[in-house]
């Protein structure tokens, strides 16, 4: 197991319609930083980085479990919805009481960029860790009929079937390792330890809501992403890894084109890292984020 301290405080934010799990580090009087994990992950993804941001960079650090992940509320029957996540984040930021530095990884990186565009008054700057969106060819849905049919079928199946159970947390960590080959096994075990719960039949299930996989036809495109980036008038630090990783899909050309759309972006490619830049190279990430924050 990794030798990481527990979060200093574990609380829930009651947002009225859902409940969001918060993990906290540092002094609430310091400037707030909100950490947003990637899809299928949870807030304990930040157990390594969060205490260092709190105590080396003197920030009040809050990591959340995004709705449908970890201990937070469940997703609607129809699945995830981008504006729903943004409303959750905006309500958390409002409670933090002053403009927040947002740090997001992958799917969470996409959310924090959207936050800067939709709620600029709540955001002072944005750190995006390998989360500049899917490649354009993945966003070009050629076949809405297939997407619609798949969405309805998957929703039916999840509605009918109980979540899959595994015999042990170690087996789930190994499954994770098979998918995230660059992520050290100890981290896979850490994520599985905090990302699973007892099932009804004596085994273990993922805490993540299986409905997170549901995707309905919606107008999401490379053009829309670029339009959103052009509208983001906050400083952005974009971190990517230099190493090939099956979860870093974006070509350098598409990455640079998207970075150019951001009015105030600073890009750093971190050597020796893949998709999980902050897990693989935490010292370098702390140094870059510290410089970026000091620049304010």
């Amino acid at each position, binding site marked *: 197991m990794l030798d990481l301290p527990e979060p200093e405080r574990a609380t829930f934010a009651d*947002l*009225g*319609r*859902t409940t969001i799990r918060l993990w906290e580090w540092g002094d609430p009087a310091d400037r707030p930083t909100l950490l947003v994990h990637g899809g299928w992950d949870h807030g304990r993804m930040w157990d390594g980085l969060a205490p260092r941001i709190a105590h080396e960079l003197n920030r009040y650090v809050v990591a959340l479990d995004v*709705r449908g992940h970890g201990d937070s*509320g*469940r*997703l*609607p*029957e*129809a699945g995830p*919805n981008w*504006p*729903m996540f*943004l*409303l959750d984040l*905006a*309500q958390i930021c*409002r409670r933090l009481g002053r403009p927040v530095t947002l740090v997001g990884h992958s799917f969470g990186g996409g959310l924090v960029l959207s936050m800067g*565009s*939709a*709620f600029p008054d709540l955001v002072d700057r944005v750190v995006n860790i390998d989360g500049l969106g899917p490649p354009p060819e993945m966003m070009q*849905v050629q*076949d*809405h*009929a297939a997407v*619609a*049919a798949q*969405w*309805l079928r998957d*929703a039916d199946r999840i*509605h009918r079937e109980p979540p899959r159970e595994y015999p042990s947390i170690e087996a789930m960590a190994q499954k994770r390792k098979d998918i995230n080959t660059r992520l050290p096994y100890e981290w896979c075990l850490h994520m599985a330890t905090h990302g699973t719960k007892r099932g009804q039949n004596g085994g273990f299930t993922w805490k993540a809501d299986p409905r997170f996989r549901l995707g*309905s*036809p*919606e*107008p999401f*495109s490379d*053009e*829309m992403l670029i*339009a*959103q980036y052009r*509208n983001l008038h906050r400083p952005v630090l974009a971190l990517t890894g230099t190493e090939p990783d099956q979860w870093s899909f974006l070509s350098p050309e598409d990455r640079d084109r998207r970075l150019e759309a951001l009015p105030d972006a600073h890009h750093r490619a971190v050597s020796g890292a893949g998709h999980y830049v902050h897990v693989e190279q935490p010292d370098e990430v702390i140094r870059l984020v510290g410089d970026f924050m000091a620049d304010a």
Partner: protein
Amino acid sequence: MTAALLVIHAAGDDQAGRRWTPLLDAWPGPATAPDLPGHGETPPPTGGHYAPGDGAIAAWRAAEQEGIVDGEVVVLGHSCSAFDAEILAAAGRAARLVIVDGLGPAWCNVDELLADRNRWLRGVFDDPEALAPPTASPDPRLAHGFPSVWERGFIGHLRRSIVVPVLAVETPASPTPFGERAERLADYGGSATMRDAATMDDIVAAATTAAQA
């Protein structure tokens, strides 16, 4: 055999399914107009959030529970819920599609889509009733409508994938620019016809023509 009818009422309609009682009564086969989540007698969705198209899942499940989806199903979508009906049709679950005032408002470009989403987000964020646990029906959040989906490329793609016959019924309440009606009808992948209607009786008369293939 006469097809069954599944009506997806307009999201936010305070009459919910009841608005469609005259059509259910006139339909020659089995017919249902379930109250969507957060409307009438149906509780809100988990987490109290709504999105364009999500009525497709709720309405189909209700029709399944009533046991009317084993044969042909005609799906009717009203106003913004025509989008939900189109998703069911695109997915191959509708034998025929009827949309009432469903051809959509003026097109948005991507900048306008984004601006509309941000406007919607700010509206809900600033409305305590839209964030609090819902205590009224329809859910007060529904008064904000949805972020627009009305980008021409996206809707055009979706409609081209609909190959079953489409009947578009247009009333004076339609949000569609009059001069664009024919062009929008031409987007569907199969045959599409249009009927004008002024009253619920007219709508019932037009819609029941879709009962027979």
